[in-house]
Structures are given as C-alpha cells and as structure tokens.
C-alpha cells in the first residue's frame, strides 16, 4: 500500500462557515509531506478530522487501509496515528520524564495492573524516556514539571511525546512557530530522525524555508479544499498558490 492516509471529499461546517469544503488528499507512506495555506484555510480543522477530534459532515478518512472516519481519537492513536497541536498541549503538572513515560508503548496502565511489581519495567521505561530526552538535549530537565519549560522546550517535548508512542504517522501542527534558530535545528533533526525510523510525517507550517527544506511533497489548502499539490519547487511557482497568499495579504 503506497498511501498510508487518505481523506476523501470531506466537508465540515461550523454554523454557516464551511471550514472544510470538499477536501481530498493522500499521504505517501514514509514521506514527509507539507500542508500549507493562508490563515483560516482549514488546515487545523483537517487535522482534527484526521485524528477524530471532530467528525466530518460528509466524506471519509482512511488510515492503513481502514475506514476510520467515525473512530474515536484514542483508537486512531492506537492504530498509529497521533499528532501535536498548534496551541501546545503538554501535561504541565507532570514531570518532563512522566510526560514521555505515559506515552511509551510498553507501559502497563490498566487498573488490574496496579498490584504488579513494575520496578524493572518502570526502570526500563525511565531509561527509554531519558534516552529520548537526550536526543534533544533535554535530559537535564527530566525532573522539572513540564509547565516549567520554556515555550520552545515545551514544543520539543510535545513532538517527543508523540514519538514516544512509536506511532506510524505523526501530524505536526506548526512545529516551528515561535521557535528560535537552535531549537529549529533540533526539531528538523528530530523530524528527519523519525522519518529514518520509517514513520510518516505530515507538517502544517507557515515557515516556507522549513517546509521547502524538509518536505518531498507539499499540499496547499485554501477555503477548506486543496488548491494545489506537488514538489516544493512546483508549488513555489504555481500561480494559484501565489494568488491564495498574495490575494489574502492584499485584502
């Protein structure tokens, strides 16, 4: 199966506002794909439909060949589809370490497991979490509350936490927004590292350099539907794309 994720003819309206209006695209397995478009184009709403935080009025979502259109969010995540958020969503009152450990696949989190002796397992999970933190140079922050991290560190932690689940695909909603240069390099490296592990990445981002540098394919949305797709080079030259961006700015 070439494509891991497909959304077909999706519609989603909020009152009279058609946030998603006939949106269709697919994402190739193992790729890093960009999803761009002017503010209000419907990118985040599309992510919400893909991850089940909202359901489309019509249209379908397929992941790994399964029709997941009406699946709850947690089931999609268990099948291997997870995401990060435009507005950071970490667990501020848990430690940085625990933020990652709760996400780790092997953790035994059932009620029936509370009397198990988990010493060894937990020690191993702590090791794993620390290793993950080490890849982004956050290991020295492991025992801080996540809420005490800086904005950029919280963004990193959120991506790392998604990776800790060992998903097949990660949707990143503006991972580079409000990030300084060094952190940007760390995030880029992390994303490339995740791709090297065989994961598929879909990125919403306004930072064009970031998109051009990472993505093999770019999908452009406007008014809730796809208006263009292609290689970064093609997209930059596409008159429709230029119009979508410039038209908005002029207005």
């Amino acid at each position, binding site marked *: 199966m070439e494509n891991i994720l497909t959304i077909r003819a999706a519609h989603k309206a909020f009152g009279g506002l058609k946030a998603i209006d006939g949106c269709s695209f697919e994402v190739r397995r193992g790729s890093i794909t960009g999803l761009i478009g002017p503010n209000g184009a419907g990118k985040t709403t599309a992510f919400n439909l893909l*991850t089940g*935080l909202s359901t489309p009025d019509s249209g379908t979502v397929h992941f790994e060949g399964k029709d997941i259109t009406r699946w*709850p*969010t*947690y*089931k999609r*995540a*268990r099948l291997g589809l*997870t*995401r990060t*958020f435009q507005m950071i*969503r*970490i*667990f*501020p*009152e*848990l*430690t940085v370490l*625990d933020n990652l*450990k*709760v*996400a780790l696949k092997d*953790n*035994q*989190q*059932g*009620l029936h*497991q*509370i*009397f198990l002796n*988990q010493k060894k397992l*937990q020690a191993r999970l702590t090791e794993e979490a620390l290793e993950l933190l080490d890849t982004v140079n956050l290991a*020295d*922050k*492991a*025992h*801080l*509350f996540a809420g*005490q991290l800086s904005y950029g560190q919280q963004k990193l932690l959120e991506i790392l*936490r*998604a990776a800790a*689940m060992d998903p097949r695909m990660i949707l990143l909603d503006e991972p580079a927004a409000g990030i300084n240069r060094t952190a940007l390099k760390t995030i880029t490296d992390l994303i490339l590292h995740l791709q090297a592990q065989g994961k598929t990445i879909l990125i919403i981002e306004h930072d064009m350099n970031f998109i051009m540098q990472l993505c093999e394919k770019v999908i452009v949305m406007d008014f809730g539907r796809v208006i263009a797709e292609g290689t970064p080079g093609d997209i930059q030259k596409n008159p429709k794309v230029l119009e979508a961006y410039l038209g908005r700015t002029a207005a």
Partner: protein
Amino acid sequence: MNYFYHLATLMCLYLLLAQSMNMYLGFTGILALCHIAFYGIGAYASALLVMHGAPFELAFLAAGILPALLSILLGLTSIRLKADYLGIATLGFAQIVSSILQNWDSLTRGALGLAGIPKPEIFGVTFADKASFFYLTAGITAVLMFVMYRILKSPFGRVLETIRDDEVAAMSLGKNTVAYKLTAFGIGALVAGFAGSLFAHFITFIDPASFVINDLSLILVITVLGGLGTFRGPFLGVLAIMVFFEPLRFLPLPAEYLGPLRLWIYSLLFVLTLRFVPSGLGGLWKHRSRRGQQFTRY
C-alpha cells in the same frame, strides 16, 4: 477516652471521603459535586439491608457497589460534559437522591430517618463500643487507603493525571479517557459508599438531613485545603480541620449559632485556599520536594 475514639472514627470517615473525592476531582479533574449522595446511598443501603436481616459483610459490600454502579450510569450520561455543566448535572443528581431519601417513605421512612441501626457483626464479633468500632473503621480505612495509594501512584494513576492536565492530549496518545474517567469516578463512589456504611452503623441513626449539600462543603474544604491531586492532601486536610475546628464545639455558643458559624468559616476557608494556595497544604510540600530533585537550576 470515648470522645477520642469517636473523633478518631470520624476522622477516618472524612479521610475516606476526602481521598475518594480527590481520586476523581483532584487527580482526574472531574468536577462532580455529588459525593455526599454516594455517601448517603451507601449509608441507607447498608442500614436498610442489615435492618432487613442481611449480614453486615454483605450490606457493607452492597453499600459500595450500589453507588459505584449509579456513578457509572451518571457518568455515562454526563462525564463528557464540560466541567461547569458536569458540576451542575451532578449537583442535580445529589438533589434527586436527597429528595428520594426524603420522600420514599415506605423504604426510607422519609424525614423521620432510620433509627436503631444495629452495630456491625462480623464473623460473630460485634463492634458495639466506641473503641472496637474505631479499630474496625481504622482497619478498613487502612486497607482502602492502601488500595487508593496503589491506584494513584501506579501508571494507571499517572494516566488519570494526564486527563486532568489535558484530556485531548491524553486521547491523542491513545488513552481511552472516557473509560479512565468512569473508572476513577466509580472507585470514588465505591469508597464513599463504604464510608457511608460505616457512618450509618457508627451513628446508628441516619436521616436525609445528614446528606445534604452542607456536608458536601466540609468534604470539599478538607480536600481543597489539604491539596487537590496529592495523596497526602486529605490527611493534612482532615488534621487541619480537626485541630482548628473541633474546638469550636466547646465555644460557649448555642447550637443554632454554631452550625451556621462553622459553615461560614468553611466557606471562607474554601475561598481563601483557592485564592491564595490553590495547591493546598499538600501542594506546597510537593513542589518543594520535587525541586530538590532537579538536576539543574531553572
């Protein structure tokens, strides 16, 4: 001495109530305001069963299971609501329970209440005097607190905390948050029901007025003052309330002033805690101890 045992028994009951409320309110972030109803259902269920000839052991179990089942039914209909709506829906539930206790005369004897509830008898041993009842209560409390400790400190408990911090993120990590929330709510109701059973057989008289919103406020104050979302919070809260407020009883004031005065002080304490130390007594300590673990200065 009897007074000491009496007080110590009550402290155990409040500890159970506060910790079981803390389970869903403090650790999971479920703003449900019907704990007193679970307590009342447990008390009535246990008293009625024993008065109709059931053994105490069975009545005690039923006193936990009945509110737990009801909490799950209530949760299925309302746990997806936003916090403020959930608060209102659960207050409504508490009101309904209270009015059933008032009005189902043939079963509950309405406002007259149930008098002469027998002392518990377990394997032929009767826990009649204050001292033995205290030991029974302390034993049961210890077991329940231990189980709740294991729950809250386990990976299961950690997931509850992620739901409190950010439910959408928890879902996105594959946690079935609705199931976790129902479980936490159910355990809270279960333990509150157990406490209700002990209360009924301790006081030997219960009426609907024992389970109204006023009494919820005491549990809430203990939980919030002690520190929401910390295991030690309820211990600190119960101690603080007993040390500072039990002496009020000895003030040379007529009872009709003492009751409202207490309620007034509880409310004030509640508001002041939320305003100035929202993490409560236990929370202060938690942050300090965690800071000690930091590898680096932040």
